[in-house]
């Protein structure tokens, strides 16, 4: 099920993840969020941008603890926990936020 952003078509896999990670533009995240009835705020973008930076360096999404620690450092200790992240991304930061950020889905026993 491909998604369309500004007249451009982006191919996604059966679970809605972008097939070509390099294609990603911010509009992809906006469109995916819209389909989930979610409005992206600056708080969401902080997470999405961090995920993309981390992925670029390590070729994998950050571990939950790495993510919560980074969020805690950047946005304050009270936000450095999973509850805060699940508040933003109800399907889970690892999966929903990664999808918006154009990252592949974390697989395995997670």
């Amino acid at each position, binding site marked *: 099920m491909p998604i369309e952003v500004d007249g451009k078509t982006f191919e996604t896999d*059966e*679970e809605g993840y972008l097939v070509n990670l390099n294609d990603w533009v911010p509009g992809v995240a906006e469109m995916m969020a819209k389909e989930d009835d979610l409005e992206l705020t600056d708080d969401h973008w902080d997470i999405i941008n961090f995920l993309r930076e981390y992925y670029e360096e*390590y*070729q*994998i999404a950050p*571990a*939950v*603890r*790495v993510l919560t*620690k980074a969020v805690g450092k950047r946005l304050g200790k009270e936000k450095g*926990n*999973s*509850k805060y992240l*699940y508040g933003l991304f*109800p*399907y*889970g930061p*690892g*999966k929903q936020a990664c999808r918006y950020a154009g990252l*592949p889905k*974390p*697989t*395995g*026993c*997670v």
Partner: protein
Amino acid sequence: MAKAKFEVPELQEYPEVPKIEPGTMAHLETFKAKPEFQEALGFPGELVDNWQEQAIEAMGDMLGKYRSLKVYMDSCVKCGACTDKCHYYLGTKDPKNMPVARQDLMRKVYRRYFTLAGKFFPKLVGATDFTQEVLDDWYNYFHQCSQCRRCSVFCPYGIDTAEISMAAREIMDRIGVGDKYSNEIIGKVYRIGNNLGLPGPALEDTLEGLEEDVFDETGVEVKYPMDVKGADILLVTPSADFFAEPHVDGLIGYGKVFHEAGVSWTVSSKASEAANFGMFIGSYENMRKVSLRIREAALELGVKRIIFGECGHAWRVAYAFLNTLAGPFDFLDKNYPVPQHILEFTLDEIEKGTLNIDKSLNDDMVLTFHDSCNVARATRMGDKPGGQFDIPRAVIKAVCNNYVDMPEDTIREATFCCGGGGGLLTDDLMELRVKGAKPRMEALKSVTEEYGVTHMAAICAICKSQFTKVIPYYGFEMDQIVSVHQLVSNALILTGQNSEGEEDESEEDAA
């Protein structure tokens, strides 16, 4: 929690056997593996032209290799003892999720091609041709079995539905029909070293982060080493322990225990995964290939012992099959079990008195324990029968003041699956996972109401992820699931640890 697109079962005060509702789960077909995932495992990329012929040949091959499979095909007397034992039947009401019906999906094909009566009088003996329709049923319902083996405990003949579903998946793989979840993951293990696809540098960064966290909390330099040659112990643990919560809190606990025990240990970037999904798809070859990484890593690093972290099916592969798959392990120290479970190690240290435990640090919780299916019904720990039940409980009770068991018919060898085992822990099977968790949720609810249980501890990465995900559908909170070594970590006071201080409390919050 995401909104459910299906009906979440209502928990009852006393578990009831539901009236059957045929076909409730017929729609649920997990994503199929793409050709590239299939081929990486040595299987055809897509359904082969003469699939029926090849499937029957594969079945014949397996019947010849596994005597047990033939016995299971022949010995069912339809007594019905298994019908109400499967969590997926209890949660979905679909009669094809009764173990006997699941077995019969293969049995009717077996009878048609491998028994005299079925060859000549198929209708009289319930034998059918292997049609596309039958294959579709195989795919859907053999991916609605978590291979937990609860039914086999109650079967008077000991018929093991798990083994039948493994064989069915292998037959399907051999004709080019595999499931995406398991097969993509096994490919990642070959390419990158673990289920997650966590490359060495990311693993190193994550472990360094843990060292910082533990230092910040305790003031003690606990190491989480990777690829250290000459270490005594190789820790093989599920990659979820590096990645997810509450898994990572358990990993922190293992490291603290090793530190206090004064042993040298390491994880390996090559064998950075305990899980072995080769078992879920019934593929001996893939199970062997995944296991051999552990042998290679142990040899390259020159370790003397191998210890497995909290992972259910990995412990089955390790305990029951590792020596035949990847042995002999004559290069390891024979004074210790080969391999050893982290809980065995920790209990030894507790009994030796090397660990300074303050149980009151877990006083904010009332614990119960979920026996993982593969540990409970396919392995042992320690040197006494039932050690796999008693050792985890002994460790929890040594570090917690408040512990209560769930009802007897839902624990130990009668434990209910978490609902996500056997290669079914994928989002596209969420409906099955939520419904299949119902019996465990009822048991948890009963001790919550009766004894004020607040947390359920588990020793399997799949159980932990599955529960964390599905319990919110039943009105619980995701952080009510904890790792057993997280409890150890909370209560363990390290030598030289900062006394008192707010940092101690932040860890309790994390629980």
